[in-house]
């Protein structure tokens, strides 16, 4: 916990971490001065016939000290806020960058990552706030009180020697008991967040299928769990304050009782008993505050552990550009096999070569592994065996940055981000000029509808591109990949929602754009594939046929059937 905090603070924030409690002590100190000064006024100012001068002077000092105290208090708060917020800021940045850097296939799912970076970080922030403001104050008051009590009268202070350790032990036990309860609560909260999030994201489905009642039931059920587990977790710590208060109050009574006995035997004075009781009261307050701090510590424990898990995500060591980027873009898959973690082979013995500048078409049944094949090329995953080379260089010797600079992908599901059309297209290349955007948009047959939007390229894109039609999103997706102007272009079934006329237009334009680029095109439509230099027919992860359009019409039953269905019987006679 302290390690996380320490690692996510820098020089000044660390200074604040320590300065805040010190300044807080200053405030306490100022507060404690007032009674002393007051007693001076009474003892000296009122002595004899009185010294009004002295009274006013001391009063002035009291005012001054009040002012200093207020400044220290606000100062402490400012310092503590600074440290905690800055820590939160760094931690959030760090977590998000880690989450973005990790490869796929780790076991933290997107929703829990989201809760961790949002809610748990806030918890840590609050923790730092508590720590810097009260962790020093309360224990100091506690310790001071105990020491003073012993100095005053060891004869009754033995009560403390029994009570305080017992209470500390009790606190420890309670907190140990509470940690798993808080974890359980957090898990329930995670679950409810997931339901809420899914309902939000899938609201159209929920409405269309009238799933409101079902979702409501699910929600209510988990909501109930959240309630039960929160109550259980909090109930486990609310026992602390009453027990501590009771123990200390009883100690006071004991002190009075034994003190009374000792007084009768003239072993103690009334003043000593009074002072002792006063210190006991101070100890009680300090102990309760410590309890509160400690219980917030235990609550933060859960958040800390969850954040730690993100910090511990495996970060594979990436090669840092050991070889220069090959200019040749000949692609080779050499006996590549792949299985998702814990699953069966999704790709088996994929082996082909694609000369630089050529076009590879991939067609295949649903779920046959087309997307996965491309994911291997961009190293979203690594093959289980076999290797992939670009221009003779195995891709795992290139840095990810090099590789992805070389390969531009239009993914199968077109993810857009909120912002403007231009900002989305510039994902491909940050430095793209407006003219370049227009060229790419034209090739993707997106220029017209962009121009028709109010604002054109500056038109707003809302979350996930919800304000565009399916086909419009796909075309922006293609344009984004084209903007990148990478040497290898990959299009994963990116025109499935585009009407045929527009698709034909896109294919035509692509033929221009991809001049000199190695292209991989996954498609269901034969029309988009037939000019490929090589077409692979995939089925259940195997290449079941390969060749050019004409060859495949002869050799692959699957290809032939699809072609006939789409283009009519004439396709056979034409070829």
């Amino acid at each position, binding site marked *: 916990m302290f390690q996380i905090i320490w690692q996510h603070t820098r020089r000044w924030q660390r200074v604040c971490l320590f300065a805040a409690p010190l300044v807080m002590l200053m405030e306490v100190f100022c507060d404690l001065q007032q009674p002393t000064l007051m007693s001076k006024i009474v003892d000296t100012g009122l002595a004899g016939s*009185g010294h009004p001068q002295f009274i006013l002077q001391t009063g002035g000092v009291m005012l001054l000290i009040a002012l200093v105290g207020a400044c220290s208090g606000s100062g402490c708060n400012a310092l503590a806020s600074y440290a905690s917020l800055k820590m939160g*800021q760094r931690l959030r940045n760090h977590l998000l960058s880690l989450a973005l850097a990790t490869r796929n296939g780790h076991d933290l799912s997107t929703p829990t990552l989201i809760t961790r970076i949002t809610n748990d970080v806030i918890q840590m922030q609050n923790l730092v706030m508590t720590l810097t403001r009260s962790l020093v104050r309360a224990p100091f008051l506690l310790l001071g009180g105990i020491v003073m009590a012993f100095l005053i009268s060891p004869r009754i202070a033995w009560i403390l020697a029994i009570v305080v350790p017992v209470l500390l032990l009790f606190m420890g036990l309670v907190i140990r008991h509470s940690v798993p309860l808080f974890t359980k609560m957090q898990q329930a909260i995670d679950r409810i967040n997931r339901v809420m999030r899914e309902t939000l994201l899938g609201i159209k489905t929920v409405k269309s299928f009238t799933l409101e009642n079902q979702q409501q039931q699910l929600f209510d059920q988990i909501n109930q769990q959240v309630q039960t587990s929160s109550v259980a977790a909090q109930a486990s710590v609310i026992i602390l304050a009453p027990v501590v208060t009771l123990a200390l109050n009883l100690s006071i009574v004991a002190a009075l009782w034994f003190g009374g006995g000792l007084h009768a035997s003239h072993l103690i004075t009334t003043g000593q008993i009074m002072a002792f009781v006063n210190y006991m009261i101070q100890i009680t307050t300090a102990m309760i505050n410590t309890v509160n701090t400690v219980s917030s510590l235990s609550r933060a424990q859960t958040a800390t552990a969850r954040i730690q898990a993100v910090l511990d995500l495996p970060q594979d060591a990436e090669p840092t550009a050991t070889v220069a980027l090959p200019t040749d873009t000949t692609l080779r898959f050499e006996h590549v096999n792949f299985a998702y973690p814990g699953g069966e082979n999704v790709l088996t013995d994929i082996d082909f070569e694609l000369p630089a500048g050529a076009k590879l078409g991939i067609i295949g049944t649903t779920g046959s592994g087309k997307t996965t094949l491309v994911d291997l090329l961009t190293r979203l995953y690594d093959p289980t065996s076999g290797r992939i080379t670009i221009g003779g260089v195995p891709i795992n010797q290139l840095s990810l940055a090099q590789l992805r600079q070389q390969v531009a992908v239009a993914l199968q599901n077109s993810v857009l981000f909120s912002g403007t059309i231009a900002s989305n297209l510039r994902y491909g290349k940050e430095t793209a000029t407006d003219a370049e955007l227009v060229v790419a948009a034209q090739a993707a047959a997106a220029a017209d509808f962009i121009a028709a939007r109010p604002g054109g390229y500056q038109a707003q894109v809302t979350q996930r591109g919800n304000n565009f039609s399916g086909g419009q999103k796909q075309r922006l997706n293609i344009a984004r990949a084209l903007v990148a102007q990478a040497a290898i272009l990959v299009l994963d079934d990116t025109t499935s929602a585009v009407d045929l006329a527009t698709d034909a237009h896109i294919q035509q334009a692509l033929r221009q754009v991809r001049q000199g680029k190695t292209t991989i095109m996954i498609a269901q439509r034969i029309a988009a594939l037939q000019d490929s230099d090589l077409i692979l027919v995939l089925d259940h992860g195997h290449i079941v046929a390969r060749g050019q359009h004409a060859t495949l019409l002869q050799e692959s039953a699957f290809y032939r059937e699809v072609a006939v269905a789409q283009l009519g019987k004439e396709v056979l006679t034409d070829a």
Partner: protein
Amino acid sequence: MPNVAMKRPPRGQHYTEEQLKVQHLKPTLRQLSGYLLQKRWPLAAVFGFTVVTTVVSIIGTRLNGLIIDRYIRTDRLKLLAMVCLLMVGMYVVASGFNWLQSHFMVNIAQETSTRIRQDVFTRMQRLPLSYFDQHPSGDLMSRLTNDVDNINTALMETFIQLFTGVISVVGMLIAMLVLSPALTLVVLLASTGTYFLSRQIAKFTQTAFRQQQAELGQLNSEIEETLSGKKTIQLFEQADQVLTDFRATNQRYVHHAYQAQVFSGALGPLNNMLNNLAYALITVLGALAILHGYQGITVGIMFAFLIYMRDFTGPIRNMLDLINTLQVSIVSAERVFAVINAPAEQDAPHVVMPTLTGTIALQHVTFGYQPEHPILHDISLTAKPGEMVAIVGPTGAGKTTTINLLTKLYPLTAGTILIDGHPIDQLDRYALRRQIAIVQQEPFLFSGTIQANIRLGRLDASEADIVAAAKAANAHDFIMQLPAGYQTQLSDRQQSLSQGQRQLISIARAFLAQTPILILDEATSAIDTKTEMVIQQAMDQLMQQKTSFVIAHRLSTIQKADQIIVIDQGRIVERGTHAHLLAQKGLYWRLYRSQFQGKDV
């Protein structure tokens, strides 16, 4: 004009002063107390417990003094023992009550926030789709989580302390008045000063808090969006850029949060200062009064008075500290209630809806997502029971939009839609939607098993029905190859199924549903042609008894439609059967021809 690349515009909205003002303080407080009043008996109990514990602590403090004066000094040990026993009893009871009080309060706070969460969720599900177009889900999530949490914390902390505070304040005020009305006046003046100071700061901090929570919503939206689009970001090596944007938002949040916290945190020390000033004033004035023999004030009176004053202003200080907590919670409550109070989807007064035969008529329908930008213009069409209507057109023509209107997802701008002769806005939307099965262009799967996902088509379907539907959708085979078959868990945005497989699941839902109306919005776009042909046969059979609307780009699938509607730029440009439209040589003909275009190159 080859521009230098522009920086991405900041994603954050910016808020005007107007938006940030405390607009709804009173209604918000009223609504919040509405929730608490539902718990009035437990709250009353808490109040009772608090009275006991506070009184015990006041009496206890007095007794300590009394014991010393009356029993210890005089060594009356028997009586001392009795009083000690009495105190033990008192303290045990008080601690018991103290525990009960926390216990009740935990329950009240949790139950209240459970209720609030539930209300938000219930309302959220009833909000019109256009609401979700305008509010990013990250921000909504932030309201549902952070803001509800803030309310919860405030409830927990505030109420007990307020009760305790009020009781001590009243007790001490009486004690002070008895001792010296003049000095009490000084204390009261100081307290009033404190009150006004707090009010001023409160106004200021509330604005800052609102901004803080709004920025937090924005921050969460970005986290949400970034992590959901991780694959794209990684492939385009955009992590740095995205993180730069994020850092900026993060910085803005921290900036506003810092303002909010510094000012609200200064509240406590400032109040403390005023109290100390009062302390000093009373000491000085008291001392001077003693010197001048004014109003019979003695050292003893002054001494006792100062102790009482500590007990009087202490709770006041505490209560003012709470203003802090309250501020966050009121801003949060406002954000939460904004969702709860948002107008729900318009619904008709419940008309009993018979099972539909499926006659659908659109009459002069005009619609725009923003009414000032119409997307559909004057759409009229009629579908008779059992008919298959195909909607064709270039992308972005408004096909999906037309479908959205049929299921009442958006309200019409003009025109009417009649279903079995009933205007759609007079039908209960649940009843209506329950009679329409739809396969969406972008299927959404929920986390849960595959079986549960298919079952969404018809919630009371048996396992056999589900398997049959999956078979008809040609999804059975791949499902059986998954490690746990139908019980395979889908999670995390369903990344573990291929795009086409997700579509198959969504089609299986439609096969399961037994509705008179079926809508397929590019249901098979990501599915290979061979599989599609297999499904098509089953689909044809399914559609025989239903009124169906089919949107498809592969025209082979819609050739046998009873009528084909061609939409372009939101208008119907052609209609008729396949043969008829081909003969017209219009847009449909061109679309149809382009299918073969690849071939003649």
